[in-house]
């Protein structure tokens, strides 16, 4: 079972929910947690895993064999990402703009282009007690997060009963890559107009992917019920509300996830998982 935890707005509590769920059920199920927020991976702070393996993530970029190249410029014309330019009889490549699509090598009639690996990030794998853990880290200065996320998810959900995916925020390509193909997406939001606005966008995104969703309201405040009303009107189930409480925030600030900091919340997260499981069925 593949459960992703996402949000439109950042900082709503995705990592808190993902790590608490994993910790709450690890004695009952075999659990895998994958941190797909490769721009800012944080789950490891709460899980303290021991990493045993690390793998470099590379994408293919063009390398030009100048001895074969006749500067016909077919490659630079065909590249829609502007990653190749021909200037004064020499070929310039811009690996940071390259999406690794392979069009340049395909159109080159002189076979002057080979594709060589270009490092974009790192994947680390390891274990915390009862949890198989993986995270990706986009190298600083690299723009494209999706290849790292794609590689992280390659064998997701194959071995364990449950795989949790901690998604990056937003609604664009990296969030889509992280959430795609999950059995259910838990959208974490907060009861503010920002939370509501971004929840609507995130719901539209997962609808487009055909992934069913349910909502968790973090920092819930009874005086602002707009998120609840929106969910009721749109028939999106709300599975949990975590109140605005500074003792929870302080635990979080120290890197202690809620399910480990409070026996009551551990029970609540177990319950949340059972409800999630029912929705997947």
């Amino acid at each position, binding site marked *: 079972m593949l459960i992703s935890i996402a949000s*439109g*707005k*950042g*900082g*709503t509590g995705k*990592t808190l929910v993902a790590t608490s769920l994993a910790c709450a059920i690890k004695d009952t199920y075999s659990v895998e947690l994958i941190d797909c*927020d*490769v*721009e*800012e991976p*944080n789950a490891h*702070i709460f899980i303290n895993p021991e990493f045993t393996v690390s793998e470099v993530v590379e994408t293919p970029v063009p390398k030009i064999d100048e001895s074969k190249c006749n500067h016909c410029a077919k490659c630079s014309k*065909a590249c*829609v*990402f502007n990653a190749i330019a021909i200037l004064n009889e020499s070929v310039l490549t811009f690996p940071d703009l390259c*999406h*690794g*699509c*392979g*069009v340049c090598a*395909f*159109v080159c009639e002189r076979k002057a282009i080979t594709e060589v690996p270009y490092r974009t990030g790192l994947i680390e794998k390891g274990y915390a007690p009862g949890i198989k853990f993986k995270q990706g880290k*986009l190298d*600083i*200065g*690299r*723009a*494209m*997060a*999706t290849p790292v996320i794609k590689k992280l998810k390659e064998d997701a959900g194959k071995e364990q009963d449950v795989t949790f995916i901690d998604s*990056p*925020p*937003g*609604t*664009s*390509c*990296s*969030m*889509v890559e992280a959430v*795609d193909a999950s059995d259910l997406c838990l959208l974490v939001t*907060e009861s*503010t*107009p*920002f939370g509501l*606005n*971004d929840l609507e*966008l995130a719901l*539209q*995104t997962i609808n*487009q*992917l055909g992934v069913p969703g349910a909502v968790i309201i973090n920092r819930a*405040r009874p005086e*602002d019920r707009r998120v609840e009303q929106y969910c009721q009107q749109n028939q999106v189930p709300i599975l949990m509300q975590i109140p605005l409480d*500074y003792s929870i*925030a*302080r635990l*979080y*600030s*120290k*890197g202690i996830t809620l399910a480990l900091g409070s026996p009551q919340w551990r029970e609540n997260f177990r319950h949340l998982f059972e409800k999630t499981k029912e929705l997947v069925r």
Partner: protein
Amino acid sequence: MKEIVVLSGKGGTGKTCIAASFAVLAKNKVMADCDVDAANLNLLLAHEILEEHEFQSGQVARINEASCLSCRLCEQYCRFDAIDNCQVVETRCEGCGLCLLVCPFEAVSMHPNIAGKWFVSNTRYGKFVHARLGIAQGSSGKLVAMVRQKAKDIAGTNSAEYIITDGPPGTGCPAISSLSDADLALLVTEPTLTAHHDLERVAGLCRHFGVSQAVCINKCDLNESNSRSIEKYCEKLNIPVVGRIPVDDSFTRAVEQGIPVVEFTCNSPVKEIEKMWAFLDSRI
């Protein structure tokens, strides 16, 4: 003209509340919201939309069923798994056009991709450029570049002194696009281990692109010892800490009212934002 971009690495640390407050405090400025996949600054700045434009970015493949003989060559070649059962999965298509090149039956055509919308609005604080990325679209970096360019054009025409840019979370494509060539990145963090971790990555990104930085610690009294470690980190890297804002529920209440927090109240946490702006204004 100076551009200040508000970033954080970690989401939800208070970027938008601070950017909206700067919009009130700075004189003669243009505002830009570069968090195009979850734009929120428009919820705090009452605005009237003057211009609305479609944002076309790249292309997307289509397969004409009538000409397709299901040879699946395109499916084998596509690096993005964007063709499934002889149909294009639009959310995965990057518009590279390899499928068009390999198709022996001319069944593939490429079409312009509408990736979102961008707007120029009037607010009582000045002009405001914002955008909305289309659902599940991938071109956020390009849309960010468009928003910034438009804000620069307007700032040039109006001889504005500042561009105040509300940035996206993260360190990838949209963050890089928001940051490059800015005059100052204000990094908003909070005293949690996660926010500190993310601050170090986004500070690394600023260094990588040679953009000067300053730090604001929001909710600084949530965990005093973490606040001290952030201060120490900043001191070590010679990054000035220009703001320390205590926990205060006026921030949430101002968001609820849809106004910048400096217009909601003038209590002492909010005065910290005014002090921070006065400092930045004098130094930049």
